């Protein structure tokens, strides 16, 4: 009953100044709309950029690094164990890049529950022969199917069919930049020379576009078998094992474990791409900061309007108090006014925010770097909507709290006598 009366009085006060109310509500609506759209857009872009890296980067990469032995013979000698030794200009010995006993390693990986999948790889340094000139390049020998399953290989093969790499012997998918330099069309045969001087002819079955031009100018893909043939190695030769885990956050600990277990170098994605993580968290921070600033500004708008309303309604407040409304009742009336503005403005803001996001989602966004993206990316994470609605209510509550506290403390005698 009492509650109903307070709402009744609040609504009447709101409607009596509906233009002011509207301005305040529009302020909230606008800020929530922008908050939702901005965060959706920013995190959509973030996901896209992260995806550029995360989709194509193994969570853990096992490889053999050529480096000088950590333990020099002298440090193994018992005689000098208590001495310091300084050896300068240590060189690595003639070691192969191959991962030894990789069959056993892959078997162990297959049995590991944490592993989603793995793809073996060979990296081969080559020269592309274009007439009299040699261009440096890298051919990645990949297991085509595993590569596609784990790293979305198909998405980046913009021309030609990726599976031809497996089905057509001695085939190659050229990086787009490399293909342009060589003026190689689909079906052409190009010639490459390995660092050891072996020559081989490969048929172009597609172009590959990673989004990073420097990579596209250099990298090409061949099947594992072709790469082994190119390097003149046996069919057990591989240089990298790329592992994808079920939980990306486990990568650092798994990498450490494998490095120890298999006696190989293991790099996890967090270490290899720390700059990306920093970048995306900074971008998220910026968009939250902007969004919350918008909401706070709207809050001040409501505060001002309520403050003005209280000055205008001094007489009404005085008479309400004289006829038996307590300070708490007056407080509730103005809080109700503020919350009404907040709830309705916020709700509209959520709807408009969703609409604006959907609109941005339709804007064409074609870039050579991202062949699979056709429109601007938007993230419709419900979290943003939650934050938006909670924040709109909290800011409007606070914006209403201080003016209403003032209203509740107004002494009716002073106003009534002042006439």
């Amino acid at each position, binding site marked *: 009953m009492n509650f109903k009366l307070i709402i009744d009085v609040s609504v009447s006060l709101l409607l009596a100044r509906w233009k002011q109310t509207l301005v305040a509500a529009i302020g909230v609506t606008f800020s929530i709309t922008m908050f939702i759209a901005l965060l959706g857009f920013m995190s959509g872009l973030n996901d896209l950029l992260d995806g550029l890296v995360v989709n194509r980067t193994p969570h853990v990469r096992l490889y053999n690094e050529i480096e000088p032995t950590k333990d020099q013979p002298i440090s193994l000698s018992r005689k000098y164990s208590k001495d310091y030794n300084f050896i300068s200009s240590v060189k690595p010995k003639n070691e192969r890049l191959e991962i030894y006993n990789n069959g056993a390693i892959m078997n162990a990986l297959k049995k590991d529950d944490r592993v989603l999948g793995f793809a073996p790889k060979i990296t081969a340094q080559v020269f592309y022969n274009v007439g009299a000139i040699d261009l440096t390049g890298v051919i990645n020998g990949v297991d085509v199917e595993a590569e596609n399953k784990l790293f979305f290989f198909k998405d980046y093969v913009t021309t030609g069919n990726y599976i031809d790499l497996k089905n057509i012997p001695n085939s190659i998918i050229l990086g787009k930049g490399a293909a342009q330099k060589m003026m190689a069309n689909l079906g052409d045969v190009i010639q490459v020379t390995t660092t050891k001087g072996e020559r081989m002819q490969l048929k172009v079955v597609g172009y590959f576009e990673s989004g990073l031009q420097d990579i596209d100018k250099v990298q090409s893909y061949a099947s594992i078998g072709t790469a082994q043939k190119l390097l003149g190695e046996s069919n057990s030769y591989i240089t990298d094992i790329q592992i994808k885990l079920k939980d990306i956050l486990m990568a650092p600990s798994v990498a450490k474990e494998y490095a120890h277990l298999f006696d190989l170098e293991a790099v996890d994605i967090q270490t290899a791409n720390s700059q990306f993580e920093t970048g995306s968290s900074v971008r998220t921070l910026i968009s939250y900061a902007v969004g919350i600033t918008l909401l706070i500004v709207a809050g001040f708008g409501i505060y001002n309007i309520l403050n003005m309303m209280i000055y205008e309604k001094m*007489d009404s407040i005085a008479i309400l108090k004289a*006829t038996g409304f307590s300070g708490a009742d007056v407080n509730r009336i103005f809080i109700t006014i503020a919350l009404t503005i907040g709830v309705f403005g916020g709700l509209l803001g959520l709807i408009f925010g969703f609409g604006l996001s959907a609109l941005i989602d339709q804007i064409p966004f074609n870039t050579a770097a991202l062949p699979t993206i056709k429109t601007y990316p938007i993230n419709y994470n419900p979290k943003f909507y939650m934050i938006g609605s909670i924040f709109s209510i909290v800011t409007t509550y606070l914006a209403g709290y201080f003016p209403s506290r003032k209203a509740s403390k107004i002494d009716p005698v002073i106003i009534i006598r002042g006439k």
Partner: protein
Amino acid sequence: MNNKILESIQVSKFFHDPVDIQVLKDINFSLEKGEFVSVIGKSGCGKSTLLYILSTMDTDYTGNVLIDGIAMRGKKEADLAKIRNQKIGFVFQFHYLLNEFSVLKNVMLPGLKWGNYSEKEVEHRAYEKLKILGIENEAFKKPNQLSGGQKQRVAIARALINDPLIIMGDEPTGNLDKKNSEIVFEIFKELAEEFNQTLLIVTHDNEFAERTHRIIEMQDGMIIKDQKIKK
């Protein structure tokens, strides 16, 4: 003793700004049910100040005020608001109607606040009060569409809605012309004589005061004369 509706015991008040001035000095008096009392005195004699203390709106005083035998000293703000709501009706010099609401709703507000009757009943009672005051035809207008006299009558209806023990008026005719003052006085008189309503009216209109049942005259914060008028 049980007929004492309002009692003022040793009420004193000081204003501290800019210098300490005692505006009320040990005011003692009581009102019985059905009395029609006017308080007169020159401007600044403290009559309005006394009224606001008696009405519980001003709590900065010494001494005590009993309403219906209950001491007001030391009560919480919310409790005092409840007493104003249920036991006191106010009529001010200025009508203080809320322009956002219709006349009927203005009258209903204190009744709705009390919540003793359902909304329907409060509406019915409000309409009855307007009828007593002869302005039931204006019930659905907004206060700013009424004349000054009509507004004051609406304010009286609002004061009556919860059947208060006492109606307090602070120069209720101060803003009205002769004709409207007459109407308002007749209403007060009717309330006192027919409905046995207790009234305490502060005024500086001596003609008005002389026609009430009891006159309390104040000077320099003290009661100097308290006389009953024989009819």
